[in-house]
């Protein structure tokens, strides 16, 4: 019969229409911005810099090695190294970024910077409501705007942040253990001057050297 297929299709739409009154599953849209779907934990948008402690400037994990600047595919990261040094999370003196800008109008959210960072310093944010009427300055974020606390990182990516914290704590423990061993060795050496020289206290091999960023890849 001509028109049978049409009626069959109409029955399908009618079923969907009527179903949307009784079945929650068929109501798939939400009324943004009043209602929101929760973001999945892996969700990513633009990068931010993690800091430990209360002071963002003192606690920045970034050591300005410039690996992310080099690896960034659209080259949206701009870093200037500092002249002086500040202690990092294990207490070792490190260079810090005097300038760290990300142009988020260029950034394509690929998270390669996160993957190549050896210091767990740069992570992906989930904030997406970043519209501004200033298309140059408003979308060029400096290090103060980029700095977000470790607690914030835990709030948006809990599983990943816990793993990172565990890894950092392990490294710190290793460095402290080494320092303690070195101190003990030095004390023993002082007590018995005839004993063979103990190895000098060296930084943990897990903590990369300062000059790494300038190495050719």
């Amino acid at each position, binding site marked *: 019969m001509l028109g049978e297929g049409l009626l069959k299709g109409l029955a399908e739409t009618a079923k969907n229409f009527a179903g949307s009154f009784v079945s929650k599953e068929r109501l*798939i849209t939400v009324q943004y911005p009043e209602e929101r779907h929760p973001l999945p934990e*892996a969700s990513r948008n633009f990068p931010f810099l993690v800091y430990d402690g209360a002071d963002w400037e003192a606690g920045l994990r970034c050591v300005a090695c410039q690996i992310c600047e080099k690896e960034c595919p659209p080259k949206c990261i701009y870093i200037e190294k500092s002249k002086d040094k500040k202690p990092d999370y294990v207490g070792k003196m490190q260079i810090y970024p005097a300038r760290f800008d990300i142009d988020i109008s260029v950034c394509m959210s690929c998270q390669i910077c996160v*993957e190549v960072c050896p210091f767990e310093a740069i992570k992906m944010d989930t904030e997406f409501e970043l519209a501004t009427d200033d298309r140059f300055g408003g979308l060029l974020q400096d290090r103060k705007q980029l700095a977000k606390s470790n607690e914030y990182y835990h709030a948006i990516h809990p599983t990943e942040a816990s793993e990172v914290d565990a890894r950092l704590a392990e490294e710190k423990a290793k460095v402290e253990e080494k320092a303690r061993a070195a101190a003990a060795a030095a004390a023993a050496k002082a007590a018995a001057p005839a004993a063979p020289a103990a190895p000098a206290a060296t930084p943990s091999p897990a903590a990369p050297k300062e000059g790494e960023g300038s190495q050719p890849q």
Partner: protein
Amino acid sequence: MSFTETKAGKFEGWNRPPVIETSDDGELLEVSMGPHHPSTHGVFRMDVALDGERVVKLKPVFGYLHRNHEQIGQTASYLQMMPYTDRLDYFCSLTNNWAYALAVEKLAGQAVPERAEYIRVILAELTRIQNHAAAVGFLAQDLGASGTPLMYAFREREKILDLFESLTGSRMMCNYMRFGGCRVDVSEAWLNAARKVVAGVPRFVDELEALLSSNEILLARCQGMGVLKPDLAVNAGVTGPMLRATGVNYDLRKVDHYGIYDRFQFRVPLGEHGDVYDRYMVRILEIHESVKILEQALKEIPAGPIMDPKAKLRGFKPKPGEAYGRIEAPKGELGFYLISDGGTSPYRYRIRPPSLVNLTILEDMCLGHNVADVVVIFGSVDIVLGEVDR
């Protein structure tokens, strides 16, 4: 002979002045369809010469979305190109990732662990389902079914994109695969969510079929429309559902044995007439076959590592040589051709995009049809301009 001159005559470029020819009834009308028109799926233009409503000449004009992809590939490092491949065919970023990763793995001689191969198959087949669902929805949209079938397709597609987002962090720009494996491991919870989504797909396809397959308007406008002959399709290098709708049994998953597709039981749906309706039907049937592959892969996925332990992220320099990696992307054969000179970036980076090659026979399919049918025939090719222009 300068390079603009060929044996056939002088090449006048794409933007030649309009050709005014006359037929028995009067002058031909030259219409420029696109580049800003919803039916052209992006920025694409067709110069159509019309005799009344009948198409007597059609010239596709590409290049409005050209962004130097291949040139960037020759200056950026191998890893840096991975997120750019997402942006070729932005409906199917994961199959693009796979094709590129496959080419680089061939170049560098890397092996992929078992679990990573399974993850790749699962993600590629999910990509195929959502691409075909959207393609069918857009075809119905081009036919004038404004909204309903497309929205049903997008509702289903959204569930798959949610899976992608919870695994890779992004709905469309996944940037997930790496040379020698995958970036993050899938959790048991994710696999269960994927099983649930896959279990719901057949019901959705049945719904879509009830809505469209026997609809008289769709039949009247699709059957016998835009017929493509098998010999022309083969000679023009057409691949994917377009080729299989003409009845040529050619599916790289069966022919090329890439990845681990040999292990799965599935059939290759073939068309008979090569018209728009066959292309529609082949896509619907391919969704069913993808569900079969997914059910097997999700059942058999083994535990284990997901990255080749020798693979490194930075300072990746393959030995000098060349490699061509190709896969059966949802739109056809997607290939990456790479030449390495031992440096950090490829010496030559070339893509064989299925969308562009499938588009080259557009004129042969459209001649003699009405101008409204050009939109439908074009919609049945299923292209993404990001891949056509690169």
